[in-house]
């Protein structure tokens, strides 16, 4: 399978701290891939490198063959990468519908003076945009909530709205940063199904950062493990669950010497 995103030796430093160290990474097209790792392992920093939030210091990131490591975030978005955030970052004082409409910004072409004059093509464009936004709203089960301010939506709805907003940019690759954070088991299950739908119905490649092992192990086809900014493992969920280095990273060195069996047991318990 062709890979949609390739990262070669990506490195990011903050002063003396190397947050991401020479990470090689690849996402096959239409796959669901996860990055896991303990807190502070550099997962979100790696996300930021891909989306142009903080430019990486060394290395190369290719998206469909185009190098993107020097581009601005808006340019990267236009190429087809979109993301959500660990701590939800909606436009809190705008309505749900407006949030999605902002996501469609790239596809709307009307120059400002045509908008002021209200030319027919502008009206048509706005009408289509509104219909599309409404469709996305329904897609994430927020039908009828379009006029509510984002800040007043319940937590789970805010998560879904953020995904809808990201979808509005028509991404080929969607980066989800801890989408299940703060969700109850029921919501988490819905989310897992929802992420699958994104891939199966819309054909979007998904890159996931997750702490919730059930989600990760349940839907990922491939998992990369980061620890202290370095890639320590990569493979299928089953391979990762039995990888001693991963267990060590999660449970500390003691666990590894204590005996693989118990550690493995504990790890899978945590995951389950």
């Amino acid at each position, binding site marked *: 399978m062709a890979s949609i995103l390739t990262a070669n030796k990506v490195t990011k430093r903050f002063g003396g701290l190397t947050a991401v160290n020479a990470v090689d990474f690849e996402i096959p097209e239409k796959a669901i891939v996860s990055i896991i790792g303990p807190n502070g392992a550099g997962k979100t920093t790696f996300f930021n490198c891909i989306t142009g939030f903080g430019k990486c210091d060394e290395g190369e990131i290719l998206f469909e063959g185009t190098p993107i490591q020097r581009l601005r975030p808006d340019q990267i978005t236009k190429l087809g990468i979109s993301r959500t955030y660990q701590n939800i970052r909606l436009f809190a*004082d705008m309505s749900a519908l407006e949030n999605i*409409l902002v*996501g469609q910004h790239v596809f709307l072409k009307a120059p*400002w003076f045509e908008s*002021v004059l209200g030319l027919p093509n502008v009206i048509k464009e706005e009408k289509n945009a509104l219909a599309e936004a409404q469709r996305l709203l329904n897609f994430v089960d927020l039908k009828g909530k379009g*006029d509510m301010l984002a800040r007043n939506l319940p937590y789970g709805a805010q998560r879904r709205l953020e995904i809808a907003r990201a979808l509005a940019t028509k991404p080929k690759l969607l980066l989800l940063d801890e989408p299940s954070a703060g969700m109850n088991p029921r919501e988490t299950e819905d989310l897992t199904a929802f992420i699958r739908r994104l891939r199966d119905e819309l054909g979007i490649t998904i890159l996931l950062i997750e702490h919730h092992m059930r989600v990760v192990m349940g839907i990922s086809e491939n998992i990369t493990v980061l620890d202290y900014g370095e890639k320590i493992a990569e493979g299928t969920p089953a391979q990762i669950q039995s990888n001693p280095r991963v267990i060590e990273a999660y449970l500390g060195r003691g666990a590894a010497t204590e005996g693989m069996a118990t550690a493995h047991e504990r790890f899978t318990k945590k995951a389950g």
Partner: protein
Amino acid sequence: MKKENFLWSSVKSGLLGGVIAIFICLVGMTEVFSKRDVIEGVITLGQFVLLATSVVAGFIASRRTINLLGPNQPLPALTAGLVAGLVTGLLVGLLIVSIGDSAEPALRTIFLNASPSLYQLLTFEKGAGNLWIMPTVGAISGLLGAGYLLLAEMFRRTINRALLVMVFMALFSNLFRVIFINQGMEGFAKFIFGQTGLTIPGTLIFFFGVILISLFWNSRGKQIQSSVAKLPKGGQLALRGTTIALIAIVALGLPQASGPFIAQVIVTVALFILMGLGLNITLGFAGLLDLGFVAFYAIGAYTVGLLTSYGEFGMQHISFWVAVPIAVIVAMGAGFVLGLPVLGVRGDYLAIATLGFGEIVRLLAGSDFLLPYFGGPQGIIGIQKPCIGILEPFVKIDVPRICNGYEMGKPQDIYYIAVASALLIAFVAWRLRESRLGRAWMAIREDEDVAEALGINLIQTKLLAYMLGAAMAGLGGAIFATLIGSIFATSMQLLVSINVVSLIIVGGMGSIPGVIVGSIALIGLPELLREVSEFRYLLYGITLIIMMLAKPEGLWPSQATLRELHHSEIETDVKA
């Protein structure tokens, strides 16, 4: 938790009230406000404001007491009000004593306003023997404040309304008097409106009139509203059409009826609405605080000045109607040039950087360096008035060109240009707000990083906000130049920018009606009330702080908040 003694807490409220009252006296408000009456021969505005402090002190003290002791304790609440008012009065009494009854009070070597005339005012012109008056009056008004708190909500609202209307009428009574006398209703005018405030019958009429009307509305309002709602569609349209037509007629006829002064005030308000709408785009929509906004106003004014002036620096051969669009375009270009470098600068740094730009523009315009082009400190004079008709060719410096047709020379004429421009720009601002660009601006205001990650080009979008805002300010400046007929660099102060920022904040950031409300309140009122205008910037300062503390969304919040309120209404309706 230990409960505070309510008496001590009342004393504290009283002390605070007293300090504020002393501040009001020493800063000079009492004296200046005393030139205007609320009720002629009964109470001056200065006294009214002082009394208000003790009323408010009493009100706060009794509210605290109720919080401490629980409701249904009228006696302690009233005592608290009395104590607070008394303390306020005593502090003012202390001020009276320290001013003393001499022709040159010692305190005056420091505080200019601690003058014998203030002494006279505070002792109600009765001299030292009447020191007891202030504390007594204070105590009574504190009691009033407490009593007011104990009234039912409905009565309070009614009294508020009545007081508000009464004070408003009193402040503008000389204006109304003139208008009514001009309309040939001299007897009526003199019966209600005095020279400096309302007459006693006038006060009674307004106070009780409002109370009666609002009592009537309380009992019948719902009925009237629903009967209007029940009207057939055509009827409603007709009703709305009539309202709009009435407003239009008043707007068209107003300057002719009221004379040049009112027209000029309204033009000033309209100019600030133009600037306000412009800054509302950069600050209210896109969240970029520009403290050098006056630069664009100046650029608009200078462009029109240079293009149309028949003075030394003018180009003389361009008419106002051509010069204005050029001025708007030049201002827009300036927005591009000044915006380009600073838009990478974030947040509060941007405010200071733009402030720097504003000052640079002003200093350069007024300097000898650019004197050959901009007239230096002498400015540009002899700006040609707009002419409807044919403008004859330029003859000679300092001789106006002759207008074959109608020359719009009076403020009443400029009024139409200014009001029409304000309406047009309000429409443009509203359309922009609803467009994709408007959404992009608001997204940037809310979260710049996320907006960029959604594909919004920050530089392009911010630059457009800056340029369109600048264009609107430029239009304002262009009209200003024509209205005044001359421009000086010294009139392009930072204070103008602060005016605009304040009116946006007061009206509500991002809200178009808010800009209009803010301009009327902050620009129109002080223009009409010379007494208030002396303390304009002091009041602005206080207003900015209070708005930030209590009501950061402004008096007329923007659409989003309203829609949200509306939405919850719909929901409750559905449930019901």
